[in-house]
């Protein structure tokens, strides 16, 4: 017998006399009230509460200004970004280049990418209640972009907001390679003192983009 057969037969024996508990009905998860604008505000507030930095961008010119501010504040020299329709439409790569930032391709050597200052992603889904953003690992959406750089910027559209965690997970389930991000990387392993920026990004920006 293989170990597989042994384990499965042990499971069967263990359950032979067991009461088989039915699947319970699962309770509803808390939903967020309010109109679209209030929901965006609530999302940004939740992101701030987990040490994220937020901004509400409404016009293309705002996006350029916001990027310029970020580059100045965080001293960005090199960046990498997702290559998807949304970020192309927003001309993020071009704007960064115009502002003097060198752009690395996400398939460059990982040691080189590890030196990157900024990674820019979109967001496939956003959970307003917790300020979490979900990033799927699709072609053009390398996971390294939100992992290796010192600073991570996620741009999301209001349409990405989901009603609750169940809704959000239902969307991720489809291709099932994803990460749900809630604030910058953190630890409290030294005397329970919160230290931001352990292995992942030290600074997390999340901007809503309307328009």
């Amino acid at each position: 017998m293989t170990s597989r057969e042994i384990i499965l037969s042990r499971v069967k024996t263990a359950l032979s006399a067991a009461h088989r508990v039915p699947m319970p009905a699962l309770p509803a998860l808390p939903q967020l009230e309010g109109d679209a604008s209030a929901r965006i505000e609530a999302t940004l507030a939740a992101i701030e509460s987990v040490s994220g930095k937020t901004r509400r961008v409404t016009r293309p010119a705002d996006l350029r200004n916001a990027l310029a501010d970020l580059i100045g504040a965080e001293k960005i020299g090199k960046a990498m970004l997702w290559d998807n329709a949304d970020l192309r439409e927003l001309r993020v790569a071009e704007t960064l280049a115009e502002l003097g930032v060198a752009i690395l391709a996400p398939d460059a050597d990982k040691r080189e990418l590890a030196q990157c200052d900024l990674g820019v992603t979109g967001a496939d889904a956003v959970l307003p209640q917790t300020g979490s953003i979900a990033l799927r690992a699709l072609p053009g959406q390398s996971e390294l972009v939100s992992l290796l750089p010192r600073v991570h910027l996620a741009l999301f559209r209001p349409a990405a907001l989901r009603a609750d965690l169940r809704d959000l997970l239902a969307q991720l389930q489809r291709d099932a390679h994803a990460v749900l991000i809630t604030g910058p990387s953190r630890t409290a392993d030294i005397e329970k003192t919160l230290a931001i920026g352990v292995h992942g990004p030290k600074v997390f920006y999340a901007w809503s983009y309307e328009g």
Partner: protein
Amino acid sequence: MTHPLARIDFRYNTQHVPPKVRAAIQKNTRTAIVKRGEAVAQLGVATWEQLRQAAHDLKLHTLTHLDAYLPQLEANVIAAGGVVHWANDADEARRIVLALARAHNVTRITKVKSMLSEEIELNEALGDAGIRALETDLGEYIVQLDHSRPSHPTNPTLHYTKEDIAEIFRRELGVDAPPDPFVLTEIARQKLRAEFLAAEMGISGGNFLIAETGTLALITNEGNGRMCTTLPPVHVAIVGIEKVIPDWNSLAVALSLLARSTTGQQLSAYTSFITGTRAGGPREFHLILLDNGRTQILRDPAARETLLCIRCGACANICPVFQNIGGHAYGWAYSGPIGALVTPQLIGTLRAGDLPFASSLCGACADICPVKIPIPQILVHLRQRVVAGDAFAAPVAPPAMQAGARAGAFGLSQPWLYELGSQMLKFAQMPFARGAWLPSLPPPANRWTLTRPFPKFDATFRDWFRARTPQGRAQKQTRALGAAVLALGAGALLFALARKLWRRK
């Protein structure tokens, strides 16, 4: 870790907790409990309770249908390009990992914190084979540098101060660091970044396995989980068979409970979902499904709920025993109430027979447990196993303890004997009493007085009860009345007798 075959002497271990460690543990567990309370309040207690019940029920449903869910999970992992291995016990799991490492010429492994990896003592086995397995969770990294062991289920460095950690960094890494959490964290970031990039294999545990899609859910706050499962070309996940849940709807419930219970966060910083292999990720994904005694627990209806545990650590934080001794006293990979529960079942009562008694049965753990494991009830069940034996194990308690337990049971069932015993204690204690205390007692009672004085027996419990409760007072009055009637009667009788005698004269 204790020697593989040594008995865990819990009482001895509790008497060797440095006061500094005790203070750190009290402070840290208190913080954790406060934060958890705030997170639960924010969600709303009613919702929280609904979620707990749902999580309990859905996990119990999964466990009692594991024969269907495990093959479903396996098929979906394989369909997504992953490889599934089955390991009967720790030894087989270690051999599978070693074989994979050898097949890929691996010399450096980065690891994500996993209690299961400590359960199977994986790092030691890899080290013996000349493969360096480096822990990358900051806490585990520090513990590994210090050649120590985690002192808490989710917070392994609970027993260190920042000064201790600076000293460990100076000694083991040769860096002169101030005792500043931020500087120390930055040093670890630099050191480990290079390791992530160089590793040929990443090893993780897993928080949940979703049968519906064959997905591994892995949760970290530091991002090391993402590093270990993204950068190295091979990812090996070792997960206990009890970690399966049916679907993503169930995951929503479980995720709503886990981070709030562990750290008081609404969600941890990173939850990764990994389903087989993917473009741009590791070329190979291996899932090792481990039994190592879990099917045995599944067989025991009175203990089955042990397997519901989602390893949040809340029971340890709230436990008055844990708060005073920390995790090391439990002697194995799992500590706190869940350690007291799981260790004797996984390694046997012969080695871990002390642990079901490592609890005052106050019930705080069951009240806080996000999946509502009736921890005290199962501990009592295991105490019975230790003392009297059951279908799963022979009794292991020493004969003296068994005799003592039997004598105690007899004494407590005979009210007159109990009364007599408690009256006698008042006299027996006289030679040892110093003021209100008994500072030292002869053996075997000295096991208590070696570490703390025992208060003098001032009153028996019955007297105490009579003096303090309405029923007790009523009882006392009835008794007093009875005594008065009796005394009057006796007086009358004596009087009559005396008169008779006097008349005769």
